[in-house]
């Protein structure tokens, strides 16, 4: 019998119980782990492998080489980044003032405004995209109104192109920016602003030197979520872009649906995944993971 055993007679038993507890808790997460492994890790891993298989069935970088050399692919990358960056910037420009406005209201009014953000959030993406198609088309509400008011004489083309895609995507992405940003702004202690003001700062200066820096984590979280979601976007550009705006996800889909070329689709998918992964990795260093997952 060791001294430890004499002093704490139940030590080993307690350790056993604690180990069993840990095992139970881990066991409870197993079905989830199994689902994710079977339905994401293995299939995506398989695609990863496929992307390195050439046409003759041997290991090669053929798919990636072809992608880097092809003008069509370069254009798709550029379009994807252009649309994603523009959407993110517009969302920030619109969403920041709105989130700020809501954070200054009383809880009751802020909750009422929140409904305005949540309704589109939970309305089917397809419904919202369709609604924009109806509004923006040549004989749509917007063109008709502009003609009646005498702003334009001929209907202008605002859908089936980049403009239409951007309008639709900003509308869909805005809640993803506002939700984390608003949560962050709500948590900012208003006394800090009072303090700045009582020390003689003008309202503008108090905002830029105190409030804005404190709201940056929320803004960053929102920007990254929007950007990452935009990179993989499919439905809205497919409908509102009218075939003129081809983003990475659409190319992946057509590679499979039309050409059955799994290698090319996988290679493009891997690039998309790696870019997304890098951004999310940077994000996790900057803001906590919980915030990112909080939709």
């Amino acid at each position, binding site marked *: 019998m060791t001294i430890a055993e004499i002093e704490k007679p139940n030590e080993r038993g307690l350790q056993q119980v604690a180990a069993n507890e*840990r095992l*139970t*808790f*881990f*066991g*409870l*997460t197993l079905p*989830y*782990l199994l*689902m*994710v492994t079977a*339905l*994401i890790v293995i*299939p*995506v891993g*398989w*695609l990863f492998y496929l992307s390195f298989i050439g046409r003759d069935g041997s290991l090669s970088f053929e798919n990636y080489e072809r992608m880097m050399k092809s003008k069509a692919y370069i254009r798709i990358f550029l379009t994807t980044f252009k649309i994603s960056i523009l959407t993110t910037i517009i969302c920030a420009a*619109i969403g920041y*003032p*709105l989130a*700020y*406005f*809501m954070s*200054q209201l009383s809880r009751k009014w802020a909750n009422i*405004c929140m409904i*305005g953000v949540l*309704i589109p959030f*939970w*309305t*089917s*993406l*397809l419904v919202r995209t*369709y609604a924009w*198609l*109806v*509004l923006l*088309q040549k004989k*749509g509400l917007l063109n008709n109104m502009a003609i009646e008011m005498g702003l334009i004489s001929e209907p202008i083309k605002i859908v089936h192109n980049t403009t239409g895609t951007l309008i639709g995507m900003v*509308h869909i992405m805005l809640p993803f920016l506002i939700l984390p940003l608003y949560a962050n702004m709500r948590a900012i202690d*208003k006394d800090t*602003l*009072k303090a700045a003001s009582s020390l003689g700062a003008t*309202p503008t200066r*108090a*905002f830029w030197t105190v409030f804005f820096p404190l709201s940056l984590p929320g803004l960053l979280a929102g920007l990254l979520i929007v950007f990452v979601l935009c*990179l*993989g976007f*499919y*439905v809205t550009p*497919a409908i509102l872009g009218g075939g003129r705006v081809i983003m990475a996800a659409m190319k*992946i*889909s057509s590679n*499979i649906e039309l050409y059955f070329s799994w290698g090319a*689709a996988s290679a493009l998918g891997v690039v*998309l995944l790696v870019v*997304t992964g890098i951004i*999310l990795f940077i994000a*996790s260093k900057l803001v906590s993971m919980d915030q990112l*997952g909080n*939709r």
Partner: protein
Amino acid sequence: MSFLNKNVSETQIRLKDRLWLYIFSYLILFLLIVPSLVVIPMSFSASQYLEFPPKEWSLRWYENYFFAWKVENGFNDWMQATWTSLKVAILTIFVATPIGTMAAYGLVNSNSRLGKILFPIFISPMMVPIILVAIGLFYFFVQFKLVGSIIGLVLGHSLVAMPLVLIIVFSALKNYDMNQEKVARSLGATRFRAFREITLPQIKFSIISASLIAFLTSFDEIIISLFVAGGDNSTITRSMFLALRDQIDPTIAAISTILIVISSGLLIIIQLIGNKENKKD
């Protein structure tokens, strides 16, 4: 107009200085809500073309949705797709909610190192571009002949719904004092009984909201359905997407109206549940 001189912030900004922000914000809120609602009047239009406002009213697009039978196969494709969507969404609740809740319970109680490793893996379905998940599932399901099956759709939709369940139940359990279960167990209850009789009643509203969100996620899902569904088992969103790519069929306005009613109804229920749970604290 003395109200314009009212202070609206901690830094003595008066309302008139900030009028632009009020106008801008209400305009954006208007633009967030109203465009989706345009489908409602469109759905009651008598015209084949999408004219706004409609000149004549009718229910023909609703009739088309509910009662149109395609001559060649004797089916109403829209209704069939709706039933598939409903079936899949309800089954998704029963797969995603228990699995997500169990995992949340396990994660809350386990040490933080395990949680740090597992959490990013668990929310990966939200992080990996959904198109990649969809073609991966398609490739995977082809091997098991699950393409075009209800099981395949339920598995795919559960995958995207599980992280939402996990996050909702996880945050509910974080605010819950686990010692209550310890008390019950020290009085002789088994772990399962302690969970069922002590913990579950206190987090049940979160679990109900989580399951409603799982339902909505499945019902609205498009990309996975696009690849995994097929044959007789198309989902409503998949049929809508395919129809939208080809032409603007006003039947879609009627279906959209119904979808708006369903999702705002569920949203109201979820908000009411949330209020109930908040009041309890």
